[in-house]
């Protein structure tokens, strides 16, 4: 936050001061809970209470010997990985289809794919619950994977679709003219050009799935994902152990952002996730 205030002596020429003050205040609002979360993960006296007392690593020690938390982390990682594979396996062809094929119901298809991102999770979660119930499928991590995989197709589709718009078709044409078949052309020409879009989408899907709770809430079987494990503990009473695990996840998310950012800088675009926002926010015609 210091960055914002200091070393910037010429705000007067850069617009009214109140705009800067407002920006600082909004950043303060956005970061206050995160700062509190991290700070109190080191607080010996529990999650509340000002000022924090007896700074300690005890909660991290408790966390590292907490079996159920790590089981749920492992479950979440598995779910996120498989969901990512499903979303890409369906979302990448869907982007190609939207870019290159005409088929009945195309407009409806595009809207349906985007719907889970804007629809409250309770609707998507419950409608999938009814489907699995009707098909007599027992709820488990598999049902969560199917839910996440389906809800996040749109992330892969929008990111890859944006990549396809920038793609030079002549390359693919040349490849086909020179005797490569569609399969070879796809893997050797199309895919390498879409690499950054796909990696970006994969990172985003992975993180969104790791954090997802509203849909998982209804599709959970016996094994918990990390957010649901935390949810269960919140209802039983809270300890800074939850702050500790959240802090660790936050640090890993930051690493993911830095990786994403590096990729984007190379690609000439740094506005992470903007394709998804623009597609969901309408004007995707």
């Amino acid at each position, binding site marked *: 936050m210091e*960055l914002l205030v200091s070393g910037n002596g010429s705000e007067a020429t850069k617009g009214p001061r109140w705009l800067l003050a407002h920006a600082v205040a909004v950043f303060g609002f*956005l970061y206050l809970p995160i700062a509190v979360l991290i700070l109190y993960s080191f607080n010996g006296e529990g999650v509340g209470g000002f000022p924090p007392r007896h700074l300690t690593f005890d909660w991290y020690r408790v966390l590292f010997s907490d079996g159920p938390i790590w089981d749920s982390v492992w479950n979440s990682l598995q779910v996120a990985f498989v969901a990512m594979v499903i979303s890409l396996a369906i979302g990448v062809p869907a982007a190609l289809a939207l870019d290159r094929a005409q088929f009945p119901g195309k407009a409806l298809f595009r809207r349906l794919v985007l719907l889970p991102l804007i629809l409250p999770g309770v609707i998507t979660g419950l409608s999938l619950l009814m489907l699995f119930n009707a098909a007599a499928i027992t709820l488990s991590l598999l049902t969560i994977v199917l839910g996440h995989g389906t809800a996040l197709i749109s992330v892969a589709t929008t990111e890859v679709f944006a990549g396809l718009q920038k793609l030079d078709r002549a390359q693919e044409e040349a490849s086909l003219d020179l005797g490569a078949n569609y399969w070879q052309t796809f893997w050797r020409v199309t895919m390498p050009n879409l690499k950054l879009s796909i990696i970006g989408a994969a990172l985003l899907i992975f993180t969104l799935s790791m954090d997802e709770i509203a849909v998982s809430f209804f599709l959970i079987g016996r094994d918990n994902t990390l957010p649901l494990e935390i949810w269960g503990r919140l209802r039983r009473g809270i300890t800074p152990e939850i702050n500790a695990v959240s802090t660790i996840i936050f640090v890993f998310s930051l690493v993911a952002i830095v990786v994403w950012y590096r990729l984007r800088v190379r690609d000439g675009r740094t506005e992470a996730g903007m394709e998804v926002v623009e597609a969901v926010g309408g004007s995707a015609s």
Partner: protein
Amino acid sequence: MFSRAYKMAVTLPPLVWVAAFLLTPYLLMFCYSFWSVSSAQVIVHHWSLDNYRELLRVGVYWQTLFRSMWIAARVTIFSLLLGYPLAYFLSFHAGQRKELFYQLVIIPLWVSYLVRAYAWKTILGSDGVLNTLLQYVHLTRHPLEFLLYSPFAVVLTLTHIYTPFTFLPIYAALEHIPRNLVEASHDLGATPGQTFWKIVFPLSIPGVLAGATFAFVLSLGDFLAPLLLGGPSGIMISNIVVSLFGAAYNWPLGAAISFCMLLLVVSLIFLSERLERKWSFS
């Protein structure tokens, strides 16, 4: 240049998947909303409008829906008040630091929704950070009870969560405004205020509409923040749906409410898109 087989190969698998796991569940929800539950707790596949009649007849559903819409409306207004000036500042006055600031807005989105809601709970509770801070500096002598387990807590938390979502489309719209329009307005003698209200703001309306739709729709359907922070007076419509699918065991009635929400959300998105197109540049 792409053969029929290629087009089939990229079109069919997504179509089948989306039909199976998106279209079918939503249709099934629609069907469920016409069914009922027998006294032996079995779903009766008999078609009637009874669930919808029940929704019209029983006041608590309406009241809860209106309370949810009122909470969502406040979240939307506060998110716009926080997000718009921030987006404007970044787009027009942040200079070299634009990239950094943009990332700073995005980063909180990567912290789990649940964890941020939980963090607010630890701040607002009666033994929470804020109350103990106020007592520590002797501003108050007793904990302020309205902070947690109230609609206030829900609005505050949801505003925190959806401000970045509101910011993003507004920022995108502002970034798309050709800068020479702004310069032309300056050169022709308009004051900064006139330039803002006559050039910048009208051109950013599609972004404002998209951001407002995000904030309103997503907070309208929220059920976790009310459960965690809302208390009895902060119950929202999705909490009723959740209890109908859980302890109350009336899936058909829950499906009817969900379907009404789905209709409401889809028509809001539709409306917002129409308006965005009306206001869009070129």
